């Protein structure tokens, strides 16, 4: 696999882990465990099995740590170990998850309701018939406020699992597209399309929320 070059922080962290630094390890666990549990849960039948898979993945990480060459980022490598174990476990459970059921069946759906654009008969075909609202007037504390975050959280929770995880890793946790592709074993196109759908729906949820607030 071709991965992003390791973050320079990675190298220092790997050294600390190899030296048995418990704080460094637990810090890593707190950062990655929630996402690892969600990813594992995509492939196996229950939350309890997902927990077992994640534990097994951490053991695999420790066993492989001395041989880890840093050809990908540390977190990408950890997620590769995780997804391999989760997929194998899912297959053993007789639970094969076709990509479509994880990715959702709406990947070709338009990002914006087609009714928002002029119809083909108009001369300005394909242009906005009603302009999107101007959000630059929304105060920062409202845009990033608790209620707004709750709207975003609920919107993400209703997404197909792979769309939800891609937007969480990319936008909530700040991973690069390459890291997400490698961690979740996605093609470049799939990664982008999943993110595109996810962002379109979250934006739509916010648009609805801000518009209903204004009235």
């Amino acid at each position, binding site marked *: 696999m071709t991965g992003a070059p390791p973050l320079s922080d990675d190298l220092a962290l790997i050294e600390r882990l*190899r030296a*048995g630094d*418990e704080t460094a*390890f*637990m810090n890593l*666990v*707190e*950062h990655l*465990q*929630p*996402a690892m549990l969600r990813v594992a849960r995509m492939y196996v039948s229950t939350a309890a099995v997902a*927990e077992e898979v994640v*534990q097994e993945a*951490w*053991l695999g990480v*420790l*066993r492989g740590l*001395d041989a880890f060459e840093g050809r990908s980022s540390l977190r990408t490598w950890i997620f590769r170990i995780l997804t391999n174990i989760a997929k194998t476990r899912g297959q053993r459970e007789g639970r094969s998850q076709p990509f479509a059921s994880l990715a959702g069946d709406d990947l070709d759906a*338009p*990002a*914006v309701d*087609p009714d928002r*654009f002029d119809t083909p008969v108009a001369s300005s*075909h*394909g*242009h*906005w018939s009603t*302009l*999107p*609202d*101007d*959000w*630059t007037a*929304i105060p920062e504390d409202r*845009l*990033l406020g608790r209620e*707004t*975050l709750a709207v*975003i*959280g609920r919107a*993400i929770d209703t997404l197909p699992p792979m769309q939800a995880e891609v*937007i*969480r890793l990319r*936008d*909530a*946790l*700040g991973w690069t*597209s390459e890291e997400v592709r490698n961690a979740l074993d996605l093609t*470049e196109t799939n990664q*982008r399309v999943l*993110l*595109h759908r996810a*962002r*379109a729906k*979250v*934006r739509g949820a*916010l*648009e609805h929320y801000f518009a209903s607030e204004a009235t």
Partner: protein
Amino acid sequence: MIGRELTCKELVELITGYLDGTLRGRRRRRFEAHLASCDGCTRYVAQMEATIRATGTLTEDQVTEEQKTVLLTAFRDWAASN
């Protein structure tokens, strides 16, 4: 397609590639040319950037104490035998 201006309906489907930097060359210039003269799409791009920024402030769940204990034990065992 070539030579024709992008419509708003098309632009909203290219935004993810635009923001990621994977929309390049002539396709990127067409995107930017449309944006420069379209208030609606300018607002749409700003909305999407605001959406991404707001999503960036989401926080992750807490790890349970039970899971932490299990993993810390595993780490100590590994460190002791390493």
